[in-house]
């Protein structure tokens, strides 16, 4: 009986439209946040930061961005890797050109630059639909990677095209470079993802979010009631790319610290983020997080389990891991095609009725 909204009356549309209308939800979320902010930094170490939590947060950010485009606006994109590269190289150029510039500003600017690029590459979506668009977006993926690999200006004319993030600190805390403390980098990334997660939620529950979903569900009808496809699609591309750009920036500056465009932003990156969005749940903010969690944690988990517990040889473990990932993806698609987010909802519905089935 614990999980009920019974007796929680909405006295205004305002409260009715709040993000978590049900009190228990608010408590749970608050609890999670408290743990994430206060507990985790105390127990975190290099392994947890660099191998688990930073990837998790940063991919969640990217998935969030892609979900806005694919899940809310219905435009499939396989250009994520390329757009992350834009964010990464933008932040590299900015921070090396203006060493004094605050890293937060650098990342936000990188996001804006990526948004502009995203809009540019999003233009075809006005004419091309579905998988045709999906494949077409690969053009941006391949072109951008080629560009950053080709034009030496992007990597400051160094010998090989590898970019390395110089140490930077924000408000006296070192964020990037090898000396940065795991707890600090983690909190930095966490701050970004929490703020932008909230912002995303606000956008999708308002007018613009409805515009996107209208285009997604039935573009013709949407246009007939006054939604301009141009505006809707381009804004979706812009916002989505902004998120992906910031994610790309964090990916390079805070997590990897050094990157080579042909390898760190290759096409697998685009697919990986798309998996996260679909497995997590299209058109769901929560889903973006769950999807990222699944695809980041699961392989590490399987690996550690097989190698350290079962003592399987690293290589066999890898092969099995690949196979199992495939099996799990298919399994979850069969169990619930609408992703983890929907499973979570169903669970809540059940909880609401528990212990009485009716």
């Amino acid at each position, binding site marked *: 009986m614990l999980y009920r909204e019974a007796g929680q009356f909405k006295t205004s549309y305002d409260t009715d439209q709040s993000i978590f209308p049900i009190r228990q939800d608010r408590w749970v979320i608050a609890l999670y946040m408290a743990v994430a902010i206060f507990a985790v930094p105390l127990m975190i170490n290099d392994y947890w930061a660099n191998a688990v939590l930073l990837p998790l947060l940063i991919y969640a950010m990217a998935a969030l961005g892609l979900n806005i485009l*694919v899940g809310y606006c219905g435009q*499939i994109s396989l250009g994520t890797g390329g757009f992350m590269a834009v964010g990464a190289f933008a932040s590299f150029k900015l921070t090396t050109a203006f060493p004094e510039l605050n890293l937060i500003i650098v990342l936000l600017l990188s996001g804006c630059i990526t948004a502009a690029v995203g809009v540019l590459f999003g233009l*075809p979506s006005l*004419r*091309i*639909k*579905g*998988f*045709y668009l*999906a*494949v*077409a977006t*690969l*053009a941006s993926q*391949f*072109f951008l990677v*080629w560009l950053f690999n*080709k034009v030496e200006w992007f990597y400051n004319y160094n010998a090989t095209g590898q970019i390395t993030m110089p140490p930077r600190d924000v408000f006296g805390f070192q964020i990037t470079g090898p000396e940065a403390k795991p707890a600090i980098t983690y909190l930095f990334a966490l701050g970004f993802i929490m703020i932008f997660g909230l912002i995303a939620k606000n956008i999708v529950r308002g007018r613009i979010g409805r515009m996107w979903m209208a285009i997604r569900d039935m573009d*013709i*009808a949407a246009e*007939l009631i006054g939604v301009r496809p141009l505006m809707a699609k381009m804004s979706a591309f812009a916002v989505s790319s902004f998120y992906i750009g910031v994610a790309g920036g964090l990916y390079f500056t805070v997590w990897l610290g050094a990157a080579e465009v042909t390898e760190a932003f290759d*096409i697998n990156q685009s*697919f990986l983020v798309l*998996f996260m969005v*679909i*497995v997590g749940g*299209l058109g769901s903010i929560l889903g973006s997080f769950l999807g990222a969690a699944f695809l980041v944690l699961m392989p590490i988990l399987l690996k550690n389990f097989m190698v350290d517990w079962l003592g399987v040889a690293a290589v*066999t473990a890898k*092969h*099995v*891991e*690949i*196979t*199992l*990932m*495939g*099996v*799990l*993806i*298919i399994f979850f*698609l*069969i169990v619930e*095609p609408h992703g983890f987010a929907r499973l979570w909802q169903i669970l809540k519905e059940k909880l609401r009725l528990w212990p009485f089935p009716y």
Partner: protein
Amino acid sequence: MSDSLLYFIEVTIGGLLAGVMYSLVALGFVLIFKASGIFNFAQGVMALFAALTLVGLMEKLGVPAWVAIIMTVGVMILLAWLIERMVLQHLVNQDPIILFMATIGLAYVLEGIGDLMWGSDVKVLNVGLPDGAVDWLYDFNIYVTKLELVAAATAALLVAVLAIFFQKTRIGRALRAVADDHQAALSVGISLRTIWVIVWSVSGIVALVAGIMWGSSSGVQFSLSLIALKALPVLILGGFTSIPGAILGGLIIGVGEKWAEIYLGEYIGYAIENWFAYVLALAFLLIRPQGLFGEKIIERV
């Protein structure tokens, strides 16, 4: 004939033949998409899997190539059946993107199993296909490899066979019916599931052919699965649902990217063919959103 012209011809032929190799992969995509509306991302891995199995059988059992090929065909058919059983039948009437996702999962599984079974060493595939430049052409100072000609011939044969299969046989007609609409197919009295098994088998066999061609030229190893990326621009250029589109698209992409690499490369830098293929296809789509031979989309309310 002036050298530059001769060279131009050489580049063009080279492009056409490279295009044929892409078409071989694209065909598999088209077959499945046409019959079931599934964008089968696993096509590339299927080619790898088929080639791996073929090599494995030849090495482990020491059987002659043609026997191994027949056995591999059997394996691919079995695979198709399993896929229908374990994946597709649970996902009927789901959004295309969900099925797309499922095929990606499938790609993982096949890759993992392939590695587990046969290991990830590079394997030399030799089913007795000729190799090296064609001599009499080479004397004209035109460079074409025998393997490419074989591939072209095979592709032509494949398309002919498929055409006959689709036009003449009862199953083939049924498949076309499904392509148009599923209800119709059911009314013809063939279960959708049988049809899916068939179409996946067929594209599995196409994947085997592609695997043999690519495998003979570069050895059989993981990278083989990445040829799928070469086929995607062909796919959107030719239209997801058109077999002639896949062939013609392949030729256009092949020639286009080779011309770009050699004549444009000098000015904007080399290694552009990868993205150029996509840009070419994209530019084309902007003019014809449904691809070369794709069905026209008529919007109604």
